[in-house]
């Protein structure tokens, strides 16, 4: 059975956001969205999603800051965050892990790989 627990997708780019919503839902996931880091934190507190996919390059409050703030808030620090970054650079990967992300994927995303990463995050925090 597909895991239907809620995924929060944080992405400011509308075209890419719509594509990812469609693909995640098509794969059987339930998806909620936010367009910046500030809203993402609010949604995490209100809806407590099972996992967060967070673009790191966001307006208002970037993903790095939002991630650190989420990890500092005991109410939501348990929610696993998967970072979406534009470059497959080692330093970005290290930076994402340092900010408290459980994993990361580079954009444009390799979707089957992303599904695996999501499943792993959901299982680890099930």
């Amino acid at each position: 059975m597909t895991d239907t627990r809620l995924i929060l997708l944080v992405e400011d780019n509308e075209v890419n956001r719509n594509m990812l919503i469609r693909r995640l839902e098509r794969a059987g996931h339930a998806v909620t969205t936010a367009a910046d880091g500030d809203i993402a934190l609010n949604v995490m507190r209100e809806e407590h999603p099972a996992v967060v996919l967070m673009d790191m390059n966001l307006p208002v409050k970037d993903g790095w800051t939002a991630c650190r703030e989420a990890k500092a808030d005991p109410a939501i620090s348990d929610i696993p965050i998967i970072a979406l970054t534009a470059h497959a650079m080692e330093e970005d990967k290290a930076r994402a892990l340092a900010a408290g992300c459980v994993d990361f994927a580079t954009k444009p995303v390799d979707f089957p790989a992303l599904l695996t990463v999501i499943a792993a995050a959901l299982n680890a925090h099930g």
Partner: protein
Amino acid sequence: MSTDIDQPVAWAHRILASAEPFLAATARPTVSIEPPTDADVLALKEGLIRVSELLHTPSSDLNHDLLNVIGAIRGYAEMLQEDAALLHPALRQALPALLSSAGSTQTAPSNLVADSAAVAHRNEAGVILAVDDMPENRELISRLLSRAGHTVISAESGEEALELLETRGVDVVLLDLMMPGIGGAEVLRIMKEHEGLRATPVIMISGRQDMDQIITCIQAGADDYLLKPFNPVLLQARISAGIERKRWHDREEDYRHQLERNERFIRRTFGRYLSDDIVEQLLEAPEGLELGGDLREVTIMMSDICGFTSLAEHLPPTQVVSLLNRYFEAMTAIIFAHQGTIDEFLGDAILAVFGAPRRLDNDPERAVRCALAMREAMDAVNAANAAAGLPALSQRIALNTGTVIAGNIGSEQRAKYGCVGHAMNVTSRIEGQTADDEILIAEATRQLLPEGIFRLGEPRAIIAKGIEDSILTYPVLGLH
């Protein structure tokens, strides 16, 4: 690949060049793609258009924007490869070029991870639950329907059927009327009372002698009936009709779900700047979210905290933030209560407009009332500050009325509701010459105020840099 990511512009050009066969294939009248996949074709085309727009008029963050759209193109192309390529030879030939230029490794249709729902939808095959206490009937149904490509699961009692319905996604239920234990009529009643099962079509099965009970079941919500012994053709036809009904329902659900998600998204994104009723208005007319703006007359409010910069220098950063938050929280509530739209918070300044996105007859009057309420609220803000050991604040507010362009300004990816125009600059000049605790309104605003409501002070002419004529202003003293 790494060179592609370093060179998004070159990458984008290659994608556009490789998209020709796809565009030609989807333009053919013989290639008709069913929902929901047709929306993916459309989205993919829009992605291609967006790429060529970005190449023609580069955005400020071109590489980032291009990579995002390229990612979307790849995603939609992969979904089409999974859902539609097998059905349409033209697509099967056209997609690999596009997929490979978009950096996808998924270029062969055999490589698919299509979900069962998509496959089932293609053949209009479904999951059928056959409920009958007679094993030979279950076997017959299973054989007839499996041959047509359906997935058949069966239950030998009403109890078992209800259990299966809880855990499995079922498209149509074939339900025997006469069974020991929970009978067909009872299973039907329980299903119709269950929110998640209510929409699943039910076809009753019975002998000819039970016609009056069949009628009762149809009245209770059964969709159709079949008499034993089955006519195989009739069975197939009723099942197809049931599946069709279920698909319609699922699509409607999806659509409703999408609408709800969009609504939540708009609320979250715009709720910070707009009061609730204006968000409602945006939701009612989503075309209002399109980029571009319209010319309209608005009353503009600018306020700031007097001497905030030097105050901030003498306080630790955490205190500055709590001081500002307390102030903004109080002022935001007052502005929303007066149906104003907050355009921006800039440091210690608030920029708000009255009359956009929605124009009301009394925009200038509401703006002045709002300014008075904001001034009055400073006492409470300062009492709270004093209790927290923080210094007292005083604010100044300037109002002006004029024509501006109001709308979603920015790029498609990062738009925000706002106003631009000369009247905005004039307001800022007036604000620069407003005294502590003063509310200063421009002549343009004063002219639009109803008589006898506000007490105004002596007019004052302001000469501002970059503005030719002097601006006539009036301090607002209070209400009559």
